[in-house]
């Protein structure tokens, strides 16, 4: 007895039309490659925030570092660290790294008319110098 086989002529031919799919996938790939080069990744700085209070004097052997952004005698803004005036972020990072009070933390205070970019640079410099806590302290209104 001859049985009809399942395979062969009578089997349903399954065809997957992949061309259009591949077209779209390549299009997507190109799109994401192009757009990703234009968009820059956003990251974060995570300082603590605190309001400046004049009465809050701290009694400690090692005082925390206070970075002020103030107008210098020449009219432009500088980073003021103790009695020193520093002009750029790299210099500030270098000086902060040489200090030994990283465990005490750092405070950043920027005057209202100071450029915002300098405030961010000061926080980043303190973070890069491995200060345990970095606190941004706006002047009390």
């Amino acid at each position: 007895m001859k049985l009809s086989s399942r395979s062969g002529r009578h089997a349903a031919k399954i065809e997957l039309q992949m061309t259009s799919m591949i077209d779209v996938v390549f299009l997507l790939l190109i799109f994401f490659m192009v757009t990703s080069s234009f968009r820059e990744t956003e990251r974060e700085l995570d300082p603590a925030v605190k309001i400046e209070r004049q009465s809050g004097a701290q009694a400690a052997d090692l005082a925390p570092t206070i970075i002020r952004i103030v107008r210098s005698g020449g009219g432009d803004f500088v980073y003021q660290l103790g009695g020193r005036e520093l002009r750029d972020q790299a210099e500030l990072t270098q000086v902060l790294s040489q200090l030994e009070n990283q465990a005490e933390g750092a405070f950043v205070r920027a005057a209202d008319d100071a450029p915002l970019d300098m405030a961010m640079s000061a926080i980043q410099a303190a973070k890069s110098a491995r200060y345990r806590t970095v606190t941004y302290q706006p002047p009390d209104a």
Partner: protein
Amino acid sequence: MRLARPRENRLEVNMTPMIDIVFLLIIFFMTVNQISDQTNEPLELSKQPGSQDQSQGAMTINIDAAGQIVVAGETLSVIDLAAAVSGEVERANNDPAAVTVIVRADRRGDCRSFNQVVGILARLDVSRVRFAVESSP
């Protein structure tokens, strides 16, 4: 004489997966655009490496170069912002420590509005404050 019937060349273009993907893409970009428009204003952020990747915040406060405070597409005064932050704290069961606020400030501006915003957050005991920066490529 019987001639052989010429074989038909049937050209089939399967459009189904193409249409599926195109619709999926349209929905995806519409959704993403809506979300990004609601929270993030197009600002020029400070170019810094930052200390961590951006996390999801309960509230995003944008400060443009002119010092205007924009939250979810609406320009707010300092008083309105204080009310909005208080609302967020109330929604978090009056626990300011549970509220994460992302401050996105334009690097071309000054610190006036920024100091006001940080002052409000500090007064309301919102301690989880993150400043957005743009990592250079």
